[in-house]
């Protein structure tokens, strides 16, 4: 057998093996590799978190003194407000119990750990899967109830989260502006952790910093989860709609621990 025909034979064999693996064993192969390297990925993820925290502290050291003085001033103000808040909290708690509106009672949560994020495409890998009752479409939030995205692919012991900023992601949102009026729009992922807000009528008042929440209109996510805040707003004279950037909160909160909402079944897209 000549060297050329041997190489050709080898290439065909590799091609056929890859096709077979992709067709029949892709999930098993990936799940096996993820299981083997899980401890290393856990160490790297936690290490990365600590290292970035260390770097952040190092960079912010100069501003700490000024910040500290400002915080002391603020602290005094807050102390006086505290008493008032205590009373309000008590009242609020009683009302919540009466109306049975606690979020923990609404959602059945599965605690998951992040072990990796893909460089290309806005996806995150978590360390629980089918065996723990996770299924495709389930929303994922942080402990601060900030929406991260939804489960895109489930393996036996692992799952991939499609981040809200992924190009495949679009969902209905509600914007709470300073006038407290209800504005609805469509959030569209643009990749690289960016989200764009679309189809907001021109006459609506949007401002930087307005908060964006999920709605239940399309049935993709539960109502009232925090998405982010409005960034730059773009208005055009020729268009009936305005657009805006959404600064997703998960960018700052993509921590190690996340929660999958188990008891919310999204409506299938038609």
């Amino acid at each position: 057998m000549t060297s050329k025909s041997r190489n050709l034979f080898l290439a065909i064999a590799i091609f056929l093996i890859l096709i077979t693996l992709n067709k029949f064993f892709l999930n098993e192969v990936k799940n096996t590799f993820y299981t083997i390297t899980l401890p290393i990925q856990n160490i790297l993820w936690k290490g990365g978190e600590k290292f970035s925290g260390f770097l952040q502290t190092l960079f912010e050291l100069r501003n700490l003194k000024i910040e500290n003085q400002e915080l002391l001033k603020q602290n005094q103000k807050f102390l006086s407000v505290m008493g008032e808040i205590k009373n309000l909290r008590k009242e609020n708690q009683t009302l919540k119990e009466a109306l049975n509106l606690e979020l923990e009672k609404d959602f059945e949560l599965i605690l998951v750990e992040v072990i990796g994020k893909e460089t290309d495409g806005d996806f995150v890998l978590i360390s629980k899967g089918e065996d723990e009752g996770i299924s495709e479409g389930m929303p994922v939030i942080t402990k601060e109830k900030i929406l991260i995205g939804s489960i895109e692919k489930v393996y036996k012991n692992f799952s991939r989260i499609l981040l809200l900023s992924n190009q495949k992601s679009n969902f209905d949102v509600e914007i709470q502006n300073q006038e407290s009026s209800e504005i609805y729009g469509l959030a569209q992922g643009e990749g690289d952790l960016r989200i764009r807000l679309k189809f907001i009528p021109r006459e609506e008042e949007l401002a930087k910093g307005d908060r964006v929440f999920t709605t239940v209109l399309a049935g993709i996510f539960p109502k009232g989860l925090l998405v982010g805040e409005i960034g730059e707003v773009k208005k055009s004279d020729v268009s009936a709609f305005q657009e805006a950037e959404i600064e997703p909160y998960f960018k700052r909160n993509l921590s190690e621990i996340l929660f999958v909402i188990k008891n919310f079944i999204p409506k299938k897209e038609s």
Partner: protein
Amino acid sequence: MRKELFLILFIYFLVLLQQSFLPHLAVRGITPNIVLISIFLLNLLENSSGLILAFLAGLILDIYSGLPLGVSALSFLILAVLIRKSSRLFQKSNIIYLIAMFSFCLLFYKFFLSFTQNFSFQFQLNLFTFLIEDFLSLILLFLGFRLIKLWRKV
């Protein structure tokens, strides 16, 4: 053979580093592509086994991403061939060649991924994020290039 095995394990570690460590150090959510950098340097400065290592590195990357097995592997293989061919025409330490060739490789890799996922030549590229990724990767590329040169001298 021992050297190749070490290189495969090293690339494997780089893939894990890219997926689990680097996201925390992202600049505007963007991280350098250290696997592509290693493949670039391997094929630029290493004569033997660069092609096989490129293919295997792509395969490992495919396992740890949502892509079908073989997509990154094939694109890395094509890039390895291109890097080898082009490095014969230019001086390897020519800074303009390094910048242009690596930027082309990064662009090709992104285009290839987009093409295999959508089966369309329509390619959406955010120039700003591409330039940041390219810039970050080039810094590491030059650092790696210098380190390898120094190591070889020793």
